């Protein structure tokens, strides 16, 4: 089974703090994704990566950055957290490049920014 893990289930941070969300997958997948999940808005793609050190902006990249130094690890960074970044963050991975590949999701990190 594909295993996608996220470093924290819950995080509470203060406005202006730098926040790191970590995601690790153990199936040698090429693609990795970061989404935020909000009621009434569904999942919105923040960033994705199809190879080490490669990244592409998704639909809502503002206020976020990412890092992929190793194939199995994809980090989401909030440079200066704001209250409107309070959300559930989901990481996902897929085997190959191409949207038709099944995406495997992590359990999510619920972030509260005060």
């Amino acid at each position: 089974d594909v295993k996608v893990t996220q470093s924290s289930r819950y995080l509470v941070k203060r406005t202006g703090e730098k926040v790191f969300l970590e995601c690790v997958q153990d199936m040698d997948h090429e693609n990795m994704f970061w989404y935020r999940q909000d009621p009434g808005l569904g999942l919105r793609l923040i960033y994705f990566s199809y190879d080490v050190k490669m990244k592409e902006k998704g639909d809502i990249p503002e206020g976020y950055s990412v890092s992929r130094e190793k194939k199995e690890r994809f980090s989401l960074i909030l440079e200066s957290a704001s209250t409107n970044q309070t959300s559930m963050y989901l990481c996902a991975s897929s085997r190959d490049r191409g949207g038709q590949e099944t995406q495997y999701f992590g359990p999510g990190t619920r972030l509260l920014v005060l």
Partner: protein
Amino acid sequence: AQRVTQPEKLLSVFKGAPVELKCNYSYSGSPELFWYVQYSRQRLQLLLRHISRESIKGFTADLNKGETSFHLKKPFAQEEDSAMYYCAMEYGNKLVFGAGTILRVKS
């Protein structure tokens, strides 16, 4: 812009009743379409995909290009079907998700 629309935020049905979760998409080509499901306290997972033409847990979905729809159907709902359902469309090496529909199956 490419968009996936799920018009119902919440669908409540009785056990044994038929279920139809609606999904419409806007895309001029021939998209790949998916249904993902998230059960309570579980991670989001793939339920079924258009290209496979499978029936998973009794659910089916047919692509109707004329109506640009990919509705999810099940003839007899079960309580364990209660979950959040997302329709998604492949576009440009990524997925575009709808807002989701909560399905509640009442006993």
